[in-house]
């Protein structure tokens, strides 16, 4: 186990600056997820931590030691690659043990540890197979085994699940989670799948074009996204953004949303909870109201009575998308298409009007210009 510190790290390929000064600090045993869209520089950063790529500027420290010039093999890290990068000519056991072999671990010791890792990952019956004879999930496990057996200070994962099908992805995700809970090793995990990030991370760093947008716990990222980009990236379906104006009505602060229902313009007022009185100076100005689909649902008077933040309004339903557990219901608010997550038993047919409630206690407000959270 080791702490990891990334200090103002930059990377350029020729004239193109791919990473523009990354700062991240990680304690022993944390699980950092680097989350961002394709091409934002996640793999580049991971490769730099591993020592597979040089650092243009800044410093990387493992356990307080600067490792900028340390060879990958001396950094005591292990990495699981997106393509798994198994050695095609070697058996599963040999693949897992290769790192130990290179480090001159004795044969008995090696065999013991390989077997242990294989058993832990439930691939001990596959020891003699070649990678080509394995299914996707099995290959993934072997790749993990290869990292595991080395018992490194830090684990690195580069989109290790993106080649698996939906079902397997969920299973393996849970396994990685359990692995981390059991080993307690520091892990850095790259993905563009926000759900993986949310379920796995102890801290998430959201990258965009080589810059960190937010570096915080999953909960904080989800509930208090630093900006609209983060808010839109995390959560599925993503947060709804509704243009609104901050108004003070009947002495209560709230937002007013314009609507065009059946050609008639009207507006909805949604009061903000009392603890959001800090935005008093925004009265009369435009903001973007961010509402997560699960906080926007069918009206339930029982709940409204319990939760002060819940605000009710009626709206016409446009499209329904049942997912089994919930039905995604599309409505129009402030000229935007907005998704509400509704219990399948409470849905109405498209075209009809339905009663909704929204939890304003969990709503976010953004500055439409800077896109930053207010």
């Amino acid at each position: 186990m080791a702490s990891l510190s990334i200090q103002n790290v930059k990377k350029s390929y020729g004239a193109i600056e791919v990473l523009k000064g990354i700062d991240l600090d990680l304690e022993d045993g944390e699980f950092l997820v680097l989350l961002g869209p394709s091409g934002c520089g996640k793999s580049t950063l991971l490769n730099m931590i591993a020592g597979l790529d040089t650092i243009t500027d800044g410093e990387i420290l493992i356990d307080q030691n600067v490792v900028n010039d340390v060879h990958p093999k001396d950094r005591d890290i292990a990495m699981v690659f997106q393509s798994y990068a198994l050695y095609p000519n070697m058996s599963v056991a040999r693949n897992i043990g290769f790192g130990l072999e290179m480090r001159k671990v004795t044969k008995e010791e090696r065999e013991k540890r390989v077997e242990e890792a294989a058993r832990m990952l439930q691939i001990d019956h596959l020891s003699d197979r070649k990678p080509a004879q394995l299914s996707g999930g099995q290959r993934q496990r072997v790749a993990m085994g290869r990292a595991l057996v080395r018992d490194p200070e830090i684990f690195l994962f580069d989109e290790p699940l993106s080649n698996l099908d939906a079902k397997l992805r969920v299973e393996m995700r849970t396994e990685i989670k359990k692995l981390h809970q059991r080993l307690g090793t520091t892990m850095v995990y790259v993905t563009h799948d926000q759900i993986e990030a949310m379920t796995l991370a102890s801290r998430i760093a959201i990258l965009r074009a080589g810059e960190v947008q937010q570096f915080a716990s999953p909960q904080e990222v989800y509930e208090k996204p630093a900006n609209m980009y983060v808010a839109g990236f995390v959560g599925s379906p993503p947060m709804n953004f509704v243009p609104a104006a901050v108004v003070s009505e009947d002495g209560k602060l709230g937002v007013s949303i314009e609507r065009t229902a059946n050609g008639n313009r009207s507006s909805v007022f949604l009061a903000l909870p009392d603890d959001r009185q800090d935005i008093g100076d925004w009265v009369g100005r435009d903001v973007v109201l961010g509402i997560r689909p699960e906080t926007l649902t069918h009206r339930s008077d029982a709940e409204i009575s319990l939760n002060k933040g819940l605000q009710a309004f009626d709206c016409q339903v446009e499209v329904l998308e049942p997912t089994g557990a919930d039905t995604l219901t599309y409505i129009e608010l402030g000229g935007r298409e907005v998704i509400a997550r509704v219990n399948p038993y409470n849905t109405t047919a498209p075209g009809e009007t339905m009663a909704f409630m929204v939890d304003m206690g969990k709503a976010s407000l953004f500055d439409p210009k800077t896109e930053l959270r207010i």
Partner: protein
Amino acid sequence: MTQKSIPAPKPLSDWFRRNVAKLVVAPTFGLIIFFVYGFIAWTGYVSFTKSKMLPTYSFEGFYQYIRLWKMTPWNVAMENLLVFGSLFIVIAIVLGCLLAIALDQKVRAEGALRTVYLYPMAISFIITGTAWKWILNPGLGIQKLVQSWGWESFSFDWLINSEMAVYTLVIAAVWQSSGFVMALFLAALRGVDSEIIKAAYLDGASLSRIYLVIILPTLRPVFLSCFFILTHMAVKSFDLVVALTGGGPGYSTIMPANFMYEMTFRRNQIGLGAASAMMMLATVMAIVIPYLYSELREKKNG
């Protein structure tokens, strides 16, 4: 939306559609059947006759084969094929592979070097044979050159030494083909997943280890391809011998193809020539058929 009706199948154009692939393959296949297999059959038949100046068609059994194997030059030719073939194949593969690995290290002027390594493939041995003959000739080429530099005792006379002359064939043949092998390997190296190499670095393997233990084993198919391309070149080598040694000194560097040619055209022994041709084909088949079999097996699965 308007209702569109589904047309009924038309028998003739349907038949054509179903069989068009076969019709397209037919001319090629027909040509091959006639010009390869037909000719092999013809040669096979002639090898059982006593044809001399011109082919005759009365069956004489294994007469020619018995004769063939009693002839010293034929045995020498087969031995040469074995020695030359195995050395040529091994050296060309090792050298080509080595050069490919070297060129794969992000070297400067890679394009120019690659061209230099590859160009011999472009030139017929009828042309370069003379140059090699001079270079290897002790009185004209390297030996003389080195001696003129002051190393009087230097000796490099393989070309005129009947024990060693066959190795000069290897030198020149390797010269011609190893660039091609290099190109094949280079192409394959470029296709190796870079993540595998990264993984190996992290596992602590050195560069040489990575090549030996990880990359080269994954290039097995390329080794196989090279092996068979080179085998076909070795079996077919004819020009090389004619241009470089003329089969000499004596007939110490004669190859089966030269033997066959000599018998058929110079010595008017068509039957004997046909018998030697059949022996060559048998050799080729022994090597190639397992290859073709495995090749198609693999393709089916992959």
